[in-house]
């Protein structure tokens, strides 16, 4: 944890509340997946909550984000209702996307959440375009693009960062480096000196931060956002963390040694914040209980909700040439 002498306890408490809600959501999603209630793939961000909270705490309601298949935490941190998200995971009516997208396609445009994505690195050009749109519209909103360390080996990474530089766009690229590209260690498949060097080579101001330290992320992003709003162009943040769970909820991740995982659990960013807050006299158990109650309610609601009406399979495809619904 950052230097404890100058910690802003109310701000850290707010972070803890966000992280606790994300953790509770992810644990419930994992269980619901194991119980067969969530039928599609679920990619958990357990252990990465500090990045989501640290970044999104610096955004206004007008600012926008794109995220990935591992994006539940970013959605919650940006303000999406976990109840609507759980309905979406269950494929039910009332979900963020009416049950038509699922975990990998959660979007919530009213809070500036422009969509998760099932294709690695595909959110990068979209985020860049959202920022390009902001520039054309004369808006001072900024866009944050979350992606993982596996994404830096796809072409859109190079293209998107170059684009953001030449058009001087307000995009913060956040590379959550959790060590794994699916079930492969990212280091084993990545050449060169890494994400920061790649970003700098494309003209993007880049820095590395401990992604497990929410206040370090918060502080770094505050400065990035300030520079972007002043017209400074794109920024890149490499946030080092660790994926405490498997690639999906059904991946036991036997490809990594138990002692490695145990050591990483000892660095759990949520537990670290809890210790600091407890030392400062904050009732973290109450925050955890509140988060759990909210998410338990979301699961109960989702489990009781109906599936989308059959005709919804045919709507919102296109205006011109849409298929006809035939019951």
């Amino acid at each position: 944890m950052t230097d404890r002498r100058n910690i802003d306890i109310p701000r850290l408490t707010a972070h803890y509340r966000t992280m606790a809600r994300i953790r509770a959501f992810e644990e419930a999603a994992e269980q619901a997946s194991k119980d067969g209630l969530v039928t599609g793939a679920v990619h958990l961000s357990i252990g990465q909550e500090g990045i989501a909270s640290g970044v999104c705490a610096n955004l206004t309601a007008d600012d926008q984000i794109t995220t990935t298949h591992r994006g539940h935490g970013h959605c919650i941190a940006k303000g999406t209702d976990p109840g609507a998200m759980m309905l979406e995971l269950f494929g039910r009516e009332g979900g963020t996307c009416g049950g038509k997208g699922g975990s990998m396609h959660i979007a919530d445009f009213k809070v500036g959440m422009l969509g998760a994505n099932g294709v690695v690195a595909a959110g990068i050009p979209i985020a860049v375009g959202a920022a390009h749109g902001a520039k054309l519209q004369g808006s001072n909103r900024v866009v944050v693009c979350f992606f993982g360390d596996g994404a830096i080996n796809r072409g859109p990474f190079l293209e998107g960062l170059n684009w953001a530089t030449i058009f001087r766009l307000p995009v913060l690229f956040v590379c959550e480096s959790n060590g794994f590209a699916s079930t492969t260690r990212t280091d084993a498949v990545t050449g060169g000196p890494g994400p920061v060097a790649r970003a700098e080579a494309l003209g993007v101001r880049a820095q590395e931060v401990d992604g497990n330290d929410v206040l370090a992320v918060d502080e770094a992003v505050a400065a990035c956002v300030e520079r972007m709003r002043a017209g400074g162009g794109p920024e890149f943040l490499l946030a080092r963390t660790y994926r405490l769970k498997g690639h999906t909820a059904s991946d036991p991740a036997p490809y990594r040694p138990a002692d490695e995982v145990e050591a990483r659990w000892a660095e759990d960013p949520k537990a670290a914040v809890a210790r600091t807050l407890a030392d400062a006299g904050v009732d973290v158990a109450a925050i955890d209980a509140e988060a759990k109650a909210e998410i338990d309610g979301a699961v109960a609601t989702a489990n009781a909700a109906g599936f989308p009406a059959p005709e919804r399979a045919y709507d919102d495809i296109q205006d011109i040439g849409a298929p006809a619904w035939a019951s």
Partner: protein
Amino acid sequence: MGQLTYIEASARALAEEMRRDPKVWALGEDLGRGGVFGQYKGLVEEFGPDRIADTPISEATIMGAATGAALVGTRPVVEMRFSDFALCAVDELVNQAAKARFMFGGQARVPLVVRQPIGMWRSSAAQHSQSLEAWYVHIPGLVVVCPATPADNHGLLKAAIRADDPVVYMEHKGLWPLTGEVPDDPDPDHLVPLGKARVAREGGDVTIVTWSRSVHTALEAAALAEARDVSVEVIDLRTLWPWDQEAVFESVKRTGRLLVAQEAVQVGGFGAEVAASAAEALGRDLKAPVRRVGSPRAPIAYARPLEQLLEISPERLAEAAVDLVRGAVAA
């Protein structure tokens, strides 16, 4: 009405729409110098480099950034240069732009036009000549347009820009210099509706359904067939998705014979969809089996004589039309 080329008609359409709606902008490689074929000539001078944006050679991000910019309320016109190059942006078009509205439960629209010039043209060889329209017809969420005349390249492009759906807009490179009547600027009412076919020539014995440059090949074929006392009706589909089944079926019911002509590879082409649909709907009314004429399943060769082997010629089409009427067995 004035005379314009197919290429000038598209530039006028874009300029009119950009004047009408400040949300419309164009992006792609070399647009500041008019674009690779001159489709954007004069536009940067009027609209400036923000709205006629020069981009890096980054097809995936041209398409992906346009998708993002469309999601936040702008209306991009994307230039892909050649439909062959647009293959570098298939994820962004097929997985992102086409599906965002549906996947997100209707929260957002992706109102963009992606221009993908198609077709054999001046020994352009295997990576600059393809007609890949059928690929996009297969993708739910997309509208696919293939204009054949200057008037349509004006009216259809304007309609495409005003549509709230992602539109794949496929101009034929061989048609750029074609001259024809286009309504005078500004005629805000000159919008050719998407999904409506055009009867390019009336006839009574056989219906040729086609699109893009092949419309002109079919018209030449119709003249050749007429000299042999076979009356050919030519239907220009204009839009491949949605396609005008009503117009096609009405004509085929009347003539009793259907010939589908396409420059694209015949196997798995859009002509197969037209043929199958007509056979399903009208099989009992047909006087002859449905016939297709298209390109062999071969990459397009550079050498002009080899390239020409793959083209559908007026003679081949006329022969097929006459065969359909006279009952000759296909070769």
